[in-house]
């Protein structure tokens, strides 16, 4: 099954949005995780926290609404929602590290069956730095990895990450366009699958040991 990049991103972002609840404070990573915000039901009150110092991130600012001092962590001018607050980086990371953020959604280069995540560097090739990712993964109550199932032909869901870790044993849920995996004390549980893919399509593209329940749900659309 070949899906376009747009289809993949939509499947993932839509599904991640279903993990959010009324009243949640949520920090979204740059890129695909940010798209989750597009699928939060309008009637649901969710406050998005941006690590650069804002709670209540609204839509991307356009035209006359653009204010150069109102940006998100990606440097994009954003509007603010009712009840928004601006604060400094120390306050922002007290929220993040201190366990006040309910959910963080981040991308990953690799994840593994122990809940380890690597998303900040490929030695010698790609060294952007960790930014706020290490604090977010350690501090948020729930850590969701939202990522494409594979990187070209490379397997990303491993027994043990080979790239430098962002944090150890912190991931709770992995959402890809093919499946949903939950990290438990017993191991990695395959909870939902995308019916566009066979079980073989999924298991052959995951290196990690999987716990496969007798009945599995389809990824909720």
């Amino acid at each position, binding site marked *: 099954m070949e899906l376009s990049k747009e289809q993949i991103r939509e499947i993932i972002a839509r599904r991640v949005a279903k993990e959010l609840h009324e009243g949640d404070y949520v920090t979204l990573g740059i890129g695909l995780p940010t798209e989750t915000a597009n699928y939060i039901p309008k009637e649901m009150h969710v406050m998005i926290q941006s690590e*650069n110092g804002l709670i209540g991130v609204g839509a991307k600012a356009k035209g006359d609404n653009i204010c150069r*001092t109102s940006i998100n962590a990606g*440097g994009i001018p954003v509007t603010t929602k009712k009840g928004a607050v601006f604060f*400094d980086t*120390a306050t922002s990371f007290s929220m993040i590290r201190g366990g006040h953020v309910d959910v963080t959604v981040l991308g990953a280069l690799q994840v593994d069956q122990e809940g380890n995540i690597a998303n900040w560097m490929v030695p010698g090739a790609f060294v952007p*730095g960790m*930014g706020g990712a290490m604090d977010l993964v350690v*501090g948020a109550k729930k850590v969701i990895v939202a990522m494409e199932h594979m990187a070209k032909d490379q397997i990303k869901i491993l027994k043990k990450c080979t790239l430098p870790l962002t944090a150890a044993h912190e991931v709770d849920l992995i959402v890809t366009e093919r499946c949903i995996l939950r990290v438990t004390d017993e191991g990695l549980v395959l909870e939902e699958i995308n019916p566009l893919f066979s079980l073989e399509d999924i298991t052959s593209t995951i290196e990690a040991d999987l716990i496969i329940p007798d009945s599995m749900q389809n990824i909720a659309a």
Partner: protein
Amino acid sequence: MKKIISAADAGKMIPNGSTVMIGGFLHCGSPNKIIDEMITQNIHDLTLIANDTCVPDCDRGKLIVNKRVKKAIVSHIGTNPETGRQFVNGEIEVEFVPMGTLVERIRAGGAGLGGILTPTGIGTVVEQGKQTIEIDGKKYLLEKPLKADFAIVYGTKVDKYGNVYLENSTKNFNTVMATAAKTVIVEAEELVEDCLDANHITIPGIYIDYIVA
């Protein structure tokens, strides 16, 4: 009353080889006029402490492109490919610090603390060479305070007492950096005639030495 100087005066104050904290998150809330003067006046061999190295043609990014930084202590360089190029080629030293740890290390430096204990970085390369301390069964990293010779920060509105108001997301690292350097210079977007409302001040003037206006 604080001394009001020009951006050029501020630039002249900074010797080569200084450790300099510069406020800003990407292009937001950065003291650009002073950075431009640092480039004009050929200040070099700096140790830069900042959140990021911005983009190549903007703010702190210009110091990188013009090769004025020998070491950067930052959380992120991904938006400035030139920093990445210099790093991979060994032309610049980069110490990567998680953003929350970076800001707390600076806060510790300014607040008279001997360091901070954080769970961030445990089980990663950030832990290497550092002391870990277990408290009530949980492991923490001991991260040491950061201080600088100069902190160069931005202010949306500044009064003659050095009190600073920072609008929206310009607060970022400016607030803590103002506490952690021997000499602190604020670049005022607007210098107000009288004084700011005592209830609407982001950085109290006690931390500020000079105002650039």
